[in-house]
C-alpha cells in the first residue's frame, strides 16, 4: 500500500502553483498511490478553503483524507478546529511561513481541541531556508516545535526532513513524525533512517511543488532494505495514522 501524506489542492495565494483534485487522482492512478492526505494551501480565507477540501474528500472517501488549515492567531482558531472535525476532516495543517505559529508568545490554545479530537498537526513549510545545520538559522522553528512537542506529547506533529535540528527533536520527542516532503527530502530521509530508524518517516510528495511519481520511484531505487521501503511508502502512515483511514 502506498500512502502520500502531503498534497495540496487549490491555488497558492503567494506563489504561482496550483493543483486540482482531478490532477491528484490522475497521478494516484498513474503511480499506484492508494491514499493521499489532501489539504489546502495556506490562506486567509480559512473557512472557504477548508470547505472545499471537505467537499472533495466526501466525493472520494476511499482515496482522499482531508486536513484543514488553521491560523493559530485568528480569533476563531479553536472554533475552526471544531468545525474541521464537524466537516469530516481528519487533521490540521499549519503554515508557519504564512500564519505566525512560533516566536514570542505564540498562540497555541488551538492545540487543545486538536488533542481532544486526536487530530494530527502537519506543518507545511515548502520554502523555508531550513536545514539540519544550526548555522542555517531558524532557531525559532527549532524552539517552537520543541516546545509544542513537549507541551502536547499526545498530538502527532508532522514536519519535513529539513526542519532545523530535526534529528535532535526526533530523539527527544516520540510524537514527531517526518513527512519526506519531496525529492531532496526523500534523499535526506534515507540519512535519517540510519540515525533514527525507519518507523517514523512517511512518504509525502508535497505536490504540486514536488511530483508524487518521482517520490515513489526515488524511494524504490534508493539503497534501502526492501522492508524499510515499504514502511516509508505506506506501512508507517497506515500504522501511525490508523484512526484516519
Amino acid at each position, binding site marked *: 500500500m502506498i500512502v502520500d501524506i502531503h498534497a495540496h489542492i487549490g491555488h497558492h495565494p503567494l*506563489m*504561482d*502553483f496550483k493543483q486540482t483534485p482531478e490532477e491528484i487522482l490522475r497521478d494516484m492512478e498513474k503511480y499506484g498511490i492508494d491514499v493521499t492526505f489532501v489539504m489546502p494551501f495556506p490562506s486567509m480565507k480559512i473557512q472557504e478553503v477548508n470547505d472545499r477540501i471537505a467537499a472533495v474528500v466526501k466525493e472520494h472517501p476511499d482515496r482522499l483524507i482531508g486536513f484543514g488549515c488553521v491560523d493559530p492567531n485568528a480569533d476563531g482558531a479553536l472554533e475552526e478546529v471544531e468545525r474541521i472535525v464537524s466537516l469530516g476532516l481528519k487533521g490540521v495543517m499549519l503554515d508557519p511561513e504564512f500564519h505566525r505559529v512560533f516566536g514570542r508568545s505564540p498562540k497555541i490554545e488551538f492545540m487543545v481541541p486538536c488533542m481532544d479530537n486526536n487530530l494530527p498537526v502537519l506543518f507545511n513549510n*515548502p*520554502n*523555508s*531556508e*531550513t*536545514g539540519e545545520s544550526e548555522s542555517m538559522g531558524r532557531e525559532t522553528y527549532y524552539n517552537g516545535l520543541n516546545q509544542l512537542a513537549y507541551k502536547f506529547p499526545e498530538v502527532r506533529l508532522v514536519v519535513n526532513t*529539513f526542519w532545523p535540528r530535526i534529528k535532535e527533536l526526533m530523539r527527544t520527542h516520540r510524537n514527531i513524525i517526518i513527512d519526506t516532503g*519531496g*525529492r*531532496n*527530502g526523500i*534523499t535526506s530521509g*534515507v540519512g535519517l533512517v540510519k540515525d533514527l530508524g525507519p518507523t517514523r518517516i512517511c512518504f509525502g510528495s508535497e505536490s*504540486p*511543488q*514536488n*511530483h508524487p*511519481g*518521482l517520490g515513489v*520511484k*526515488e524511494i524504490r*531505487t*534508493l*539503497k534501502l532494505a526492501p522492508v524499510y521501503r515499504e514502511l516509508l511508502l505506506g506501512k508507517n502512515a497506515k500504522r501511525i495514522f490508523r484512526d484516519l483511514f
Partner: protein
Amino acid sequence: MSQRWKPTGPATLLIDDMDAAGVDIAVVFGVFGDAEDNAFVAKSAEEHPDRFIPFVNFAPSYEEVGLELVDKYLGEYKWKGVKVGHTHAVARFMYPMMEIAERHGAVVAVHSDHSIRNHPYIIGDIANSFPKVKTVILHMGGGTCFDSELLSTKMAEKNPNIYLETCYSNPYAIKQAVERIGAEKVMFGSDSANGGYGSRFEKAGDYMGLMLDAVRFADLPEEQEKLVLGNSAAKLLGVDA
C-alpha cells in the same frame, strides 16, 4: 567530477551511469576550481572525447589564479564553458571572469539555490550585466525551495541570454519554464558525478534516471521533450544532436 569528491572513483563511474540511463554525452567540470581539479577533468575528457564536454571550474576565491585557469582552458584548450559552484554568484572576481568568457564566446553555468549568494535573482543580475554571455542557471534554483525554481523562469523571461538546467527541479516547474521561455532554453542536467549522489542508489544509472524522469513526467509534447533532453544543449554547445 573530482578525485577528491567523497565518495569518488574513476571517471568511468560516470560513464557507467550514463550508459545505464541512456545518456550519450555529459558536460563535466570539477568541484573545487583549482588547478588539480581542472586537470583531472581535462585528463578525463581526453580519455573519453565522445562522452564528455569539459567546462572549466572557476572558484572566485582563487582570485587571479582562477582567472588564469579560465583563460587557459577557454583559450588554449578551446573548452566551451565555465562552471561556477557554491560561491557568491556576484563575487568580485566574477566580473573579470565574465569578461574572459565573453572574449572567448564561452557559456557560463552557475550553481543556484535559494540562498542570498546563489539566488536566481543574483545570477540574473550578473547575466544582465553581460548580455552577450549565455548564462545557465544550474538546477533552476531548485532543490529545497520551490520559489526559486519559478523565479529562475522569471529571470530567464527577462534576460534572453539566460538558460535553465533542470536537475533537482520538479516536473511542474520544468513544464512552466518550457511554456514561458521555450524548450530551446531549458536543458536536462543531473548533477551526477564519479561517485556522489549516485552512490546512494541501488544501481548505476538510477539517480540519473530519476533526473531524466523529472523531465519525462512533465508530459511535454515530444519535440519539446527532445529539446530539453538534449537538443537544446547540443545547439547551445555546437554539438551534433
